[in-house]
């Protein structure tokens, strides 16, 4: 070979390559300076001397698959050049992370196992941006997360604390409802059922509250304290068997309703105005010891007004439907299907599901 030809071949020969092997067995070669940008590969080369030939390829961690590896090498190839300006690097980074979420997560994992911190930070920033400020539904969709929490669990645990006031209201309304129904029962000359302590914790009752701007505005703390005091006196009577079956159904219904979003609210809202409602119900829920001494303290007048209106509205609507619906529910027998009554944000009823099955 002449000198001239040797000179032409030389540059290619001089460039050294590193051989990398991914977990699936495939081997790639990559320019040395690009590979050295990864701390883990760099260390492998320096400490063990591996990577210089195909037989002695550096095995990469399991998380690095071939597609991810090529992405990472692209990143390294761009950034290892010292001559790039900050602006160039930034715009490269912005374009680089525009990949689907699955690949982005794989990339993050792989970069972490290769200890490539700048890439880990870049991808983490991107992922954080995708999660920050989005609703849970949006996040689940973006990242293909399974929606496998029950409604209950979704409303725990922090939302309780944010809605303390509503929770207390709810409890009172529920208690009031029970008392009203008991009154009705007494007036029909039926023996009062056995005392049953409601040992459901406050948390269970809380669980149907939607923490956001859910439709709980339709609730109003009732102002019939006097009635309570009267009822308390009668509270400790035993129950009868007649009523037990109905009572049980009623209970199931109540508990079922309680476990649903806002359905309980709606339920309770109507019965807060039990004095005005003409509810003909045979069964009645168990008695609850309840101290209503501090009901109306926290509500400010504006909220009271609003709640008042909403409850009136709802009561009117429910009044017409309620007796028939109750009969239907009770006649469903031991069927413990959950009743899904949901209420949308502004307080109006959206649908009765199982109840509509005729």
């Amino acid at each position, binding site marked *: 070979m002449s000198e001239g030809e040797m000179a032409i071949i030389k540059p290619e020969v001089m460039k050294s390559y590193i051989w990398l092997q991914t977990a699936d067995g495939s081997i790639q070669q990559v320019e040395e300076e690009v590979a050295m940008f990864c701390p883990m590969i760099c260390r492998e080369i320096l400490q063990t001397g591996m990577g210089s030939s195909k037989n002695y390829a550096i095995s990469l961690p399991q998380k690095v698959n071939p597609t991810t590896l090529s992405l990472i090498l692209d990143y390294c190839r761009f950034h290892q050049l010292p001559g790039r300006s900050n602006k160039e690097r930034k715009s490269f980074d912005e374009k680089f992370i525009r990949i689907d979420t699955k690949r982005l997560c794989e990339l993050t994992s792989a970069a972490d196992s290769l200890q490539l911190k700048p890439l880990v930070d870049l991808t983490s920033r991107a992922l954080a941006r995708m999660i920050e*400020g989005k609703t849970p539904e949006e996040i689940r969709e973006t990242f293909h997360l399974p929606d496998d929490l029950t409604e209950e669990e979704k409303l725990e645990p922090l939302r309780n604390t*944010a809605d*303390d006031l509503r929770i207390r209201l709810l409890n009172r309304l529920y208690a009031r409802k029970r008392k009203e129904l008991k009154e009705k029962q007494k007036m029909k000359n039926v023996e009062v059922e056995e005392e049953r302590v409601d040992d459901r914790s406050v948390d269970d009752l809380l669980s149907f509250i939607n923490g956001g701007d859910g439709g709980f505005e339709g609730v109003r703390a009732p102002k019939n304290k006097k009635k309570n005091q009267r009822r308390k006196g009668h509270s400790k009577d035993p129950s009868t068997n007649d009523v037990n079956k109905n009572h049980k159904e009623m209970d199931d219904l109540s508990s079922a309703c309680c476990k649903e979003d806002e359905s309980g609210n709606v339920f309770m809202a109507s019965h807060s105005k039990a004095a005005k409602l003409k509810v003909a119900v045979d069964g009645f829920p168990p008695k609850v010891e309840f101290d209503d001494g501090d009901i109306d303290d926290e509500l400010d007048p504006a909220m009271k007004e609003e709640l008042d209106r909403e409850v009136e509205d709802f009561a009117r609507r429910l009044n017409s439907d309620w007796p028939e619906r109750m009969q239907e529910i009770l006649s469903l027998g031991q069927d413990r299907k959950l009743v899904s009554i949901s209420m949308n944000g502004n307080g109006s009823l959206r649908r009765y599901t199982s109840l509509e099955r005729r």
Partner: protein
Amino acid sequence: MASCSTLDMLSNLPENILENIFSRMSMRSVVRTSVLSTKWRYKWISVPHLTFNDNCMPVSRGHDILVKIVNHVLLLHRGPVVTFRIASSQLQTCSDIDSWILYLSFHSVKEFKLQISQSKRHNLPQCLFSYGQLTHLILNGCIIVHPVTFKGFSCLKSLLLEKVTLSNATLEILVSTCPQLERLTLIDIDGPSHIELNNPKLKFLYIFGNFIDICLKDLSTLDSANFCATNAAHADQQRTCNFTNFFGSILSIQKLVIRGCFLQSLAIDDVPRRLPFTYDHMKSLSFTLNEEDMKEILIAICLLKSSPNLQEVEILLWRSKESAIVPVMDLQEARDQMKCTFNKLRVVKISKFLGREIELEFIKFILANSPVLETMNISPATNGVDEVLMLKELLRFKRASPQAEIVYLDPKI
């Protein structure tokens, strides 16, 4: 769904990555991940940085809800708490705060911030002083009393006290027992009349509020200092630090800002014609100047002369004959002092300009002695300026720098 599970890569990311992601999200979003799916229910509870502020807390719900939320989060939390910051406009003094501080004392907190925006200040519990790993401390709206056994925060790098009440002794011990202290900020603190600073690593100092007698002792690492006194020192106020000592302790300063009546407070002493040292590193100097006060004018000239490498100067002018220590009679003494060259001065800004003699003297002095000056910004006082007359004068001044521009900014309406 099978396809769902293979697509969901996010949930299986290792903990350190999740922590990285969580650290870039607001507290609110972090906690909300608990309702995404079963796997995500308790991923957030070991997040080491807890920040509660108006952005992530429901402001409309008030103090009680805020307290409940913080209690709930702390109750669920597992693992070390590296950062705890609470700065909500709704936070009032209450015993829950003490519980939080006690709880955190077992969690090796490194950064702690407590801000009470209401007028009633909170009495800090003494367990705060047992935070041995503390590197950053911000207290706002508190009453601080140190325990007698307090030996100092050995790792504290940054201390910010704003609207706190404490005694001279407490401030003294807080500041002097922190050998690693790099940043100190005191804003509107009640109580101390005196402070002595000799922290070997102090880089940044910011003191704002009533005049405090500041005694600096050889702060050779101080880069940037900002002093603002909202009221002048009383004539009979004890002052242990005189002008030369004060300025002699900050020789490596790069940026100095003096506002309010601070310069005046220093001017009570005798002002030497020339300081026995120079600020070779000072790049940026900004000060307010009462142009009716001869002593302040002399200090200003003295400072300028002692900073040969100055690159930026800003002078905010104001006028008050009553506050003047030595009222201006004759400017000859000032003119005599104005002899030096600013070899690196590039930008000058003069505010509240009225076009009076002393102001014009300053500008003349700077223009004639700044060979690399690029811009002289003059911002006039809102009224009382005879623009044409003044501009005529300015036009005549000799300029050492051929590229100097005089930019006359329109008065702000």
